[in-house]
């Protein structure tokens, strides 16, 4: 069983005009997903908030490249990735739909697709 649509994403600009993509996944973020996403040497860091606050969720951060990072919560079902070099872009009207797919984004989304095509997602078909 796999997700028919592994994730939805919404695209915007962050305060530095970089591409910011919010991913809503079809199932919760597990350690096995994070293991999958860090293949190829992508550095992963996890801050164990739950060690200090029982009801807290742990924070993960994946450094996709020098200029792209994804951050979310283990056990949540969404995360945010920011793509692009800080200070490279300035403001102005930009049609987000016309942006080229960045290599970092493509790499991340291919990994997500691959993970959910192989992995059963309970309750979602």
């Amino acid at each position: 069983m796999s997700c028919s649509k592994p994730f939805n994403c919404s695209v915007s600009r962050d305060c530095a005009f970089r591409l910011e993509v919010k991913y809503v996944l079809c199932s919760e973020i597990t350690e096995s997903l994070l293991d999958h996403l860090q293949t190829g040497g992508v550095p992963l860091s996890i801050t164990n908030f739950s060690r200090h606050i029982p009801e807290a969720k742990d924070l993960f951060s994946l450094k996709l490249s020098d200029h792209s990072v994804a951050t979310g919560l283990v056990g949540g079902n969404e995360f945010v990735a920011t793509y692009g070099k800080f200070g490279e872009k300035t403001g102005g009207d930009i049609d987000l739909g016309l942006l080229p797919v960045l290599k970092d984004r493509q790499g991340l989304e291919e990994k997500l697709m691959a993970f959910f095509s192989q992995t059963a997602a309970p309750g979602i078909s």
Partner: protein
Amino acid sequence: MTTSFPVDLDAPHRRCLVGNEPVIFHCHHFNTYLQQTLLDAEYLDTPKILVGAANEAAFHQLTSLFDRQAVQAVPERKKLAEELYRWAGFGKIDLSSLTAEGGTVSTDYSHYSQAWKVKLGKASKPVDFFTSGWLAGALSAVYDLPQDAFSATQLKCMAKEDELNVFSLTPGGPNYAVYTSPAGGTLSKQVIQETPVSPVDEDAVFQALGELPLAGDPDTGLIEAFGVILTRHYANYYNRISFEFERELAATFGMEGLEIAEPLLVESGHVCAFNTFGGIMKSMEWQGLIQPQLSTKEHWVQGMVACINALGWGRWQAVEISPGIAKFIIHNDYESIGYRAMYGRADHNISYLAKGAAMGIMDLIYIGHIEDGPTLDPAFYNQLFKAEHSYRGEVVKSLAMGDAYTEIHVLQ
């Protein structure tokens, strides 16, 4: 997060010192806005203040660290200085080309230049005054020379769309104001006040946030967190540039100068609150750590205060919170500590950042409904902070003026 230099955490006072310099978190919005505020006063020579304040902090910090760590050899000193610059989120710097005779140094990552371009667009002149001064101070410390041994000039700037930042260091005396760092200052006795019952475990939040890897990226020297670019900056830098700006305005225009300075500096605090606090309250960090503890807007204020207490700004307490009024007590706010150490007791309140920040908390939570995740853009800023119904702040007690702590009331 390990460093080759000691990071001295003073948890009871919610402060952090490195090389006997208090270091505090601020974001690129505040750094750029505050610098621009000074530069806009073209009738004053504010670049000399900006460069001089950086020279002051870097020289004192590195001199202290070299002494404490018994670092004698020039290559090791340069390595430590480079690491510290990166750790603090200022960017990347390679000091290997510099000698006791000065030299030229370039970098392709600079917090100040990159932030300027993002915030304000292409600059017409170089804008990384901070790194100019930092380099002059650092080089003097590395070679055991007087603090003002070098002049510093920025030749190229990424904010001008040059490919790199390029700086020239020349022996023969300063081209900036020379200040003596007051180091950590003298703290007042801290008597913790009673606060409303809170679901936020503040000590646990402090511990948890302390574990975030908030250091400059090894490749870029920048700190990305909470949706902004952070720096672990020098409290004495902010204090020096703010208070020297105020003093120069007063020297030029008398009382009117002081009246000009206050709203400008409070506005910097407002900008800080909007972007940094707004970014924090929309962040994954907040959602993971703080938000599970919150159910009312008053809890959001308490959660935000818990986060502020991890920024190194002194110890904040929200002693009264309601939609109509909030009362914040700040023990050893960094502005007051710095002012007293630099200039003695103040004859007017000077907690500008704290006032703007306190107002910003209330604006974001009660007017801006930050829990709904609004977009933090200029239109929202104006809607929140420039409206008739925006909160206003009153500093009713001032540590800088001799009170036991600083107290700010925020009312609508």
